[in-house]
């Protein structure tokens, strides 16, 4: 009698256990994806950068999903929105991602004005916001508890480049051409700060409006002064290309140093032979000789049949780091926990190792490189 009760009870228990396992196994077959919002300029003046960053994003998603996904085998789903380099569109995109797609994870941002607008919304709504490309210092100063910025600010980049110029190139006189924006003006201060009284002397400073196409007046003025170095603070490859071409055309032969972070293959392409010998510095080049970078470059070339550049790397970083952080934190909705995870850990990326400081700024533990254009290619200058 007891034996049969025991057997009966055991069967019931076994049955109950099975009943619990089987539905979970069945449900587990169709796991909801983890939605990550990516807002980039896919049309409009910054579309080139948007496309590049997006390539990195797509590659990262593919890698993460290929390795089995996150948060218990769930696939990462990228929802891409176009901000058209327009702050209002960026805001609309955030609202759409938040309300219609129901995600708390916002990444992207190439133009600083767009990121600035977006972060107001993400701050008020308590969303996680990873700023992929935008560099304006103001972005980091908004007291946003869940904002993270991947690119170093220009001041950070200058911290390497300007002393390097003073110590390695040792120019006595420098002429400075800058764009009439916050960026340009900060550059003027940076030169003063790093070179001060004992460093290279800035003998001429000329400003131009964005969108200008004829720089020959400035360049002729510079040429007459026969400086040892020409330092250029502007970001748009088309502008840089035009300036380099026009300098070449008027026979202005001083060595040219582009403010750090601004040398890329578009500049080389647009300037043609005028790019030869141009100098710059950057925290990432795709010829970096590390295993992580080599793998990244290889995977990118496989997927897109072309090598990646900085934008692609940043896009890749944004999704790779976020995915890992989500996995480690074990949640996609607890924004505070994800933020803490991001801040408390070191992250391995193609550019080296980075950590986030209290304000969310990514700081590379790797080294900046000086660059020079040789035979039409960007190479590392020793």
């Amino acid at each position, binding site marked *: 009698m007891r034996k049969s009760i025991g057997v009966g009870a055991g069967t019931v228990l076994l049955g109950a256990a099975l009943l619990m396992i089987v539905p979970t196994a069945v449900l587990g077959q169709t796991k909801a994806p983890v939605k990550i919002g990516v807002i980039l300029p896919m049309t409009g003046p910054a579309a080139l950068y948007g496309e590049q960053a997006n390539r990195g994003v797509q590659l990262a998603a593919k890698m993460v999903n290929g390795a089995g996904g996150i948060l218990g085998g769930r696939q990462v789903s990228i929802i891409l929105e*176009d901000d058209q380099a*327009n702050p*209002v569109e960026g805001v609309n995109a955030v609202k*759409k991602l938040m*309300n219609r797609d129901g995600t708390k994870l916002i990444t992207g941002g190439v133009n600083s*004005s767009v990121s600035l*607008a977006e972060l*107001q919304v993400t701050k008020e709504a308590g969303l996680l916001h990873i700023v992929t490309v935008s560099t304006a210092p103001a972005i980091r100063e908004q007291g946003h508890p869940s904002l993270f910025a991947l690119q170093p600010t220009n001041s950070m980049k200058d911290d390497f480049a300007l002393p390097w110029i003073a110590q390695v190139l040792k120019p006595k006189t420098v002429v400075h051409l800058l764009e*009439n924006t916050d960026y340009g003006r900060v550059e003027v201060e940076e030169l003063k700060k790093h070179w001060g009284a004992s460093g290279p002397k800035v003998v001429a400073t000329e400003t131009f409006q964005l969108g200008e196409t004829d720089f020959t007046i400035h360049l002729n003025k510079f040429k007459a002064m026969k400086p040892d170095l020409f330092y250029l603070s502007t970001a748009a490859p088309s502008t840089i290309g035009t300036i380099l071409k026009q300098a070449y055309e008027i026979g202005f032969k001083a060595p040219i140093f582009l403010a750090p972070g601004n040398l890329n293959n578009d500049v080389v392409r647009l300037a043609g032979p005028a790019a030869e010998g141009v100098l710059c510095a950057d925290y990432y080049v795709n010829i970096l000789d590390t295993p992580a970078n080599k793998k990244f470059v290889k995977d990118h070339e496989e997927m897109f049949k072309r090598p990646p550049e900085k934008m692609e790397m940043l896009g890749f970083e944004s999704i790779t780091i976020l995915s890992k952080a989500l996995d480690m934190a074990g949640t996609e909705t607890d924004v505070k926990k994800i933020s803490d995870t991001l801040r408390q850990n070191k992250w391995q990326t193609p550019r080296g190792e980075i950590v986030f400081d209290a304000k969310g700024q990514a700081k590379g533990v790797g080294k900046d490189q000086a660059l020079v254009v040789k035979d039409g290619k960007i190479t590392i200058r020793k």
Partner: protein
Amino acid sequence: MNRAARNRRNWTRFLGLVVALLLPIVFQDAYLRNILVIFGIYCLLALSLNIIVGYIGEVSLGHAAFFGLGGYASAILSKTVGFPVLLSIPSAVVISGILGLFIGYLALRLRGPYFAITTLAFAEIIRLIVTNWVDLTRGPLGFTQIPPLVLGIPGWFEFKVMSELRYYYFVLVLVGLVFLLIYNVVHSPTGRTFLAIREQEPLARSVGINPFRYRVLAFVISTMIAGLAGAAYAHFFRIISPDINMVYYSAIPLMMVMVGGRGTLLGPFLGALLFAVLPELFRTAGTIRMVFFASFLLATIVYMPEGIAVKIQTFIRDWETKKSPQELGDV
């Protein structure tokens, strides 16, 4: 218009109002409400340009100037100078009006293409000033952190009009007021004077009307409304950039008015509906969207130059005239 038609029209308007009031309740999500606010602001823009294109009868290609100016003026006054938003918005409207007076006084001496080019030139000058006076407007970087609209007395009670829902009603009130203003002017002796000037200028002059003064007056009203739209825009999105002065914001109101139906009261609303809602539905289309819009405008000019609203009105009228003979027993 006969009694029945007038009643019908009043009922339609009343229904329209009810629908407008209830819309945000139907559309609960913040994103759609966002679109509603944009629609409201576009209504204001269209109503304002309609005065110039429909009632004065000239094509202005520089309307974006007043839209952008209103936005920047209110933004700068409230953030840099420290005005409460409740004061900066009317101030921006006044500033737009003053500029409208200046430009209108100069430009309205000219007609047709000359007028169009002049408005375009003025708009360009304003755009250049806004873009280049970086110390005041922060130029291409855009002007951010514009204070939100706060109703009430500081220190006593404050009602922040920031969410899409509240802002929609705010804009609705503005649209309602502007509509009432235009409606009353159109149906007043002044409105009849405008009509006379537009249709039979020599005759109007012969009875002592000075068309120039009336045109300038209309122009000023139009620019003030455009400035109001700009200020509403600035305090909703709380960022503004020189994009707002670009040809796009002169072209879109023009399209709204031409396609919707210039010189009518309904036209601007139809146009705003089309051109505010469609872009959001075609979010990912970007530049192609403009190609469609411009093609649409071109097609409208060729096939339906009077605009949709007028087409509808003509259609209804034809339908009515077809009905009445039978009702009256005519054969």
